[in-house]
């Protein structure tokens, strides 16, 4: 072997080292800090405590099955197959917000409905919706800040008022949301809640034209509400027991309504509702037939990532959408490597 020149040795050392450094930079381990799905899941765990095996948000849930009966009207807005007149199988999950899978239902928090609608070709659409038309934050950074600021103090069970006040002084949108939810009626059942996409999406019709839309599922069951002054008296599993009980008497239905944005409506800010006079198209009826505990259903072992969309529906510029996708993926990955425990409903059924 010839004597190596210093330049040769430098090249041999420098090239792999440079590649390794570039890799660490790409992964965000060195250089400017980036907010990833893992950090969002960490913030949720910081707020909600450690509950291995369960979702990092909306941990308390109930699985259901049903059908979406499309009336065909949605086809004028989107070429998604499930808007053509017909019946499409659905499974989904009712849930309440928060990381505690055994939390009481007597809380003024999100009631939520998640769905998977499957087209005849097997294309799937996942929807995850809350019972409010707006969200407390507009960006993933604010979401993480809010999780940190609103962590309940173990001593009082309430967020530290000073920390929360500081957060709210910088986030008027969260204050506006709090005012909204304090005044809004709190449904006393999953069956009579309206569920909103909150985020905007893009519907693409068969001519290739795109429109910004939001949607909601409006209940056929008339609204009755919980008394917010007496939430402490609500039985722990009230919402979940009620829904199972109702379905033993027959199906429960919602009408799906698509709201089309007018020019100028905010399409990337989930904290602002669109005016109520916007063009609305009713696209069909969701019929839920059966419900059961997560450990026996289809809903536990998937994640209702709202960016799983069929052809004919696309993402808007709302920054919450990719953030949700990254966070749901991280939560799903974590709970998949842990062992899932029984659900609240499964536990109570087992006890009977």
């Amino acid at each position, binding site marked *: *072997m*010839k004597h*190596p020149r210093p330049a*040769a*040795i430098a*090249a*041999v050392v420098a*090239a*792999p080292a440079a*590649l*390794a450094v*570039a*890799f660490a930079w*790409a*992964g*965000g381990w060195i250089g400017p800090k*980036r*907010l*990833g*799905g*893992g*950090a*969002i899941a960490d913030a949720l765990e910081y707020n909600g405590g450690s509950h291995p095996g369960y979702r990092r948000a909306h941990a308390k849930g109930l699985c259901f099955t049903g059908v979406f009966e499309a009336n065909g009207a949605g086809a004028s807005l989107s070429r998604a197959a499930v808007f053509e007149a017909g019946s499409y199988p659905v499974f989904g999950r009712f849930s309440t917000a928060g990381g505690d899978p055994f939390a009481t239902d007597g809380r003024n928090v999100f009631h939520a409905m998640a769905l998977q609608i499957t087209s005849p070709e097997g*294309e*799937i659409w996942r929807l995850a919706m809350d019972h409010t038309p707006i969200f407390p934050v507009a960006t*993933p950074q604010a979401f993480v800040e809010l999780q940190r600021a609103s962590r309940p103090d173990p001593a009082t069970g309430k967020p530290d008022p000073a920390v929360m006040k500081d957060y709210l002084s910088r986030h008027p949108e969260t204050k506006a949301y709090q005012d909204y939810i304090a005044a809004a009626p709190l449904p006393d059942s999953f069956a009579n809640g309206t569920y909103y996409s909150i985020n905007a999406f893009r519907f693409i019709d068969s001519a290739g034209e795109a429109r910004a839309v939001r949607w909601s599922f409006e209940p056929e069951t008339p609204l009755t509400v919980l008394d917010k002054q007496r939430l402490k008296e609500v039985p722990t599993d009230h919402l979940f027991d009620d829904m199972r009980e109702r379905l033993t008497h027959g199906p429960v239905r919602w009408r799906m309504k698509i709201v089309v944005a007018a020019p100028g409506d905010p399409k990337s800010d989930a904290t602002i509702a669109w005016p109520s006079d916007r063009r609305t198209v009713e696209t069909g009826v969701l019929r839920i037939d059966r419900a059961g505990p997560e450990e026996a259903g289809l809903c*536990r*072992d*998937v*994640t209702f*990532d709202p*960016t*799983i969309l069929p*052809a004919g529906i696309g*993402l808007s*510029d709302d*920054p919450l*959408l*990719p*953030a949700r*996708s*990254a*966070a749901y993926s991280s939560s*799903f*990955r974590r709970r*998949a*490597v*842990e062992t*899932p425990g029984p659900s609240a409903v499964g536990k109570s059924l087992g006890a009977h």
Partner: protein
Amino acid sequence: MPTRFPLTIRLLHWGMAVLILAMLFVGVGMLSTAGPAYAALLSLHRPLGAALFILVVIRLTIRLQTRAPPLPEDMPSLQKAVAKGSHVLLYAAMIAMPLIGWAMLSAGGYPVKLGPSFSLPPLVPQDLQLFGLLRTAHTLTAFAFFALILGHLSAALIHAFIRRDGVFSAMGFGRSRAKSSLSSSEVDG
């Protein structure tokens, strides 16, 4: 004995090297962010990974039907074994990564979307625990793959700049300078 790999193998080697490094960077890069880049990079990651699977199948088929240049005669046999073993591992990683990616999305109940209206059928049945295992395997295999590539790159540069024994030019496109130092007795590759 050939002094270089067949042209198709050399083209595939360098083309795939660029794409595989891109996949590794895209993979860790997308997980570092919850911004719009997460969604965009993930929808690039899946079809690129699938394309690499097709490329490695073509590459292995050609590789098994052609002759590879032997390693230099003066290379210690342990080093030769390490070189060959690491090449086998590189091939194993090239095959495993896309298959794990495809299987893990199937086990997680995700659609395996390669384009706006093209998806692969599930490779394995849906199963939460299997998803957990495969998701972990995708990460661990990716990091082992990257470490292997760093070692492979270092070895290639040592051959090119320090030993200057013709091993580098066996995968190169310039004129081979070190033909004479290549063994003529080795038959395999």
